[in-house]
């Protein structure tokens, strides 16, 4: 039986969204095989809690669970050898990881132990006619997409950025939980010790969950315009996104707002770009948006070529006007609403 596995990343007691996205993709990949395929989720944790149910709801048929106090905090020195032993025992064909901070370290580490390949930061996955996994990876900041195959070694591993696939619940089959053998955990390398994880709760809506993202680039020119951009995003019920220079300048201070190859991939209903030139590194992260509108004062800006609508305009002028327009539009709507109520 073919086994397609997904590494189930835990974030503060819950299964991360990217895990569910990958399980959904795994189900789709399984259709390419005529014979039976096992969709497995591999979870290492201090306490399983309700996580099995979540994995099951998104299509995991087998949950390989390693539960131990020593797995409370992630560290490759404990996690990777456990996964490598499990791979040797169960021989999965495909093993997918979210290209999160942890996944981006853990996947290549495991691969180096079992001596197999990992296709990094994939933008798509499919099964070829010969039954091999074909992973599409971006190179040169997304300007080139290349296929990666792992013909001889197993498992065929891949890491996928959050937001690349869409998580869909499946008609629930009951999953089987198999305990992972944790012997050897005590031999873990003690030269590296995880001390703590700090997570800042941000008030702002995450850009990968917003229906409309208002993105700003170096052309914003100053932090005042970044504040304006945030205001506009808030008025529209969306989120403010940024390019890298915008962060480098310190206008945007939350790295989670960055869109692109080293930032997030987003697919909102509407993306608007202000003062963004359209470098491939950025476009790579926003090209799947529904509608793209961009504003740049340079009539030859690259971003116009990847936009549905564009305007050659100065952000200093257009941002205040848009804010006013949205405000008055909302005020009118509210007034109308009130009248209808009476």
């Amino acid at each position, binding site marked *: 039986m073919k086994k397609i596995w997904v590494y189930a990343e835990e*974030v503060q007691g819950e299964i991360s969204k990217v895990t569910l996205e990958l399980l959904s993709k795994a189900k789709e990949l399984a259709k390419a095989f005529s014979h039976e395929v096992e969709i497995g989720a591999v979870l290492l944790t201090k306490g399983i809690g309700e996580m099995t149910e979540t994995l099951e709801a998104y299509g995991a048929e087998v949950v390989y669970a390693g539960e131990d106090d020593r797995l409370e905090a992630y560290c*490759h*020195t404990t996690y*990777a050898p456990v996964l490598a032993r499990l791979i040797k025992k169960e021989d999965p064909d495909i093993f997918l990881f979210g290209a999160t901070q*942890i996944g*981006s*370290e853990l996947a*290549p*580490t495991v*691969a*180096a*132990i079992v001596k*197999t*390949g*990992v*296709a990094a*930061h994939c933008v798509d996955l499919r099964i070829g006619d010969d039954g091999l996994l074909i992973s599409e990876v*971006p*190179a*040169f*900041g997304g*300007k*080139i*997409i*290349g296929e990666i*195959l*792992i013909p*001889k*070694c197993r498992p065929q591993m891949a890491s996928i950025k959050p937001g690349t696939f869409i998580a869909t619940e499946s008609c629930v089959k009951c999953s089987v939980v198999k305990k992972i053998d944790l012997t050897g955990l005590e031999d873990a390398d003690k*030269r*590296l*010790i*995880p*001390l703590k*994880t*700090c*997570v*800042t709760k941000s008030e702002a809506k995450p850009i990968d969950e917003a*229906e*409309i993202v208002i993105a700003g680039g170096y052309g914003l020119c100053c932090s005042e315009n970044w504040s304006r951009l945030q205001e506009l995003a808030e008025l*529209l019920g*969306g989120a403010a996104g940024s390019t890298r220079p915008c962060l480098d300048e310190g206008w945007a201070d939350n*790295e*989670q707002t960055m869109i692109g*190859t080293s930032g997030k991939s987003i697919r909102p*209903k*509407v993306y608007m770009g202000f003062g963004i030139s359209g470098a491939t590194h950025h476009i790579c992260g926003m*090209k799947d948006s*529904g*509608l793209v*509108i961009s504003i740049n004062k340079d009539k030859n800006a690259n971003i*116009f070529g990847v936009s549905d*609508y564009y*305007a*050659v*305009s100065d952000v200093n002028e*257009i941002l205040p006007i848009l804010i006013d*327009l949205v405000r008055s*539009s909302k005020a009118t*709507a509210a007034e109308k609403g009130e009248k209808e109520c009476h």
Partner: protein
Amino acid sequence: MSLHIVVCIKPVPDPDHYDRVTIAPDTKRIVREGIPTVINAVDKCALEKALQLRAQYGGKVTVITMSLPSADTNLREALAMGADEGILLTDRAFAGADTLATSYTLAKAISQLGDADLVMLGAESADGATGQVPSQLGEWLKMPHLWNVFSIEDVEEKKYRIKTKYENGYKEWEGTLPLVLGVSRELAKPRHIGAMGIIKAKNKPITVLGKNDICGIEDEYIGLSGSPTQAGEIRTPEMGRSGHKLEGTTEEIGIQILEKIRAGGITI
């Protein structure tokens, strides 16, 4: 205490020109004509931090790359920044290496040095951008490793408090040397190279090593044949859109934009 720090640098086509990268229609190969080769930017951040640590503790900084013979120029630049020695791994047998084969080859050469306390790399290269070499190098060297390091502070001799990036925050670690660290841009801002640096670099040694110069290297793990991943077809993604220009006064453009946003499915 003195440290021997090894910094891995990778020559890459300058990322500022990636919009000029194309695929030749006939040969189906990547065309990067006229794009200059530079040291992967974040590798210089790793080198900068290494130089700062050397200033603090004393010791030596060795830069190493596996690349074409022309990477000599890039190594010379790293020496001008302040590194003490350069090592160039170059051999036809190394060609076509994926991250596993690259990290293996680097590991074999670093092991041969015998005394590396700290190995530093960029977290990610600009061209391939897998970000996998640091972790895999750590595994081959049997040293603990961390990825996306943005802060290193010493606690006591050979013991460091290290911060790595994490979604919406960071993770803190305590690591005892030897360690392998893949670093992010925030760790250190590379210094400018002065005329003195360039002059001094002329007399610093660069050792060129081929396969036969590296002790115990096994064919099974190097180059294309030692790489589990194989490249398939390549394409340029279709990203173009119709690009309708909105015209009029700024006010008129604003009104049109609002219409488009509504048409895009957003209620205002």
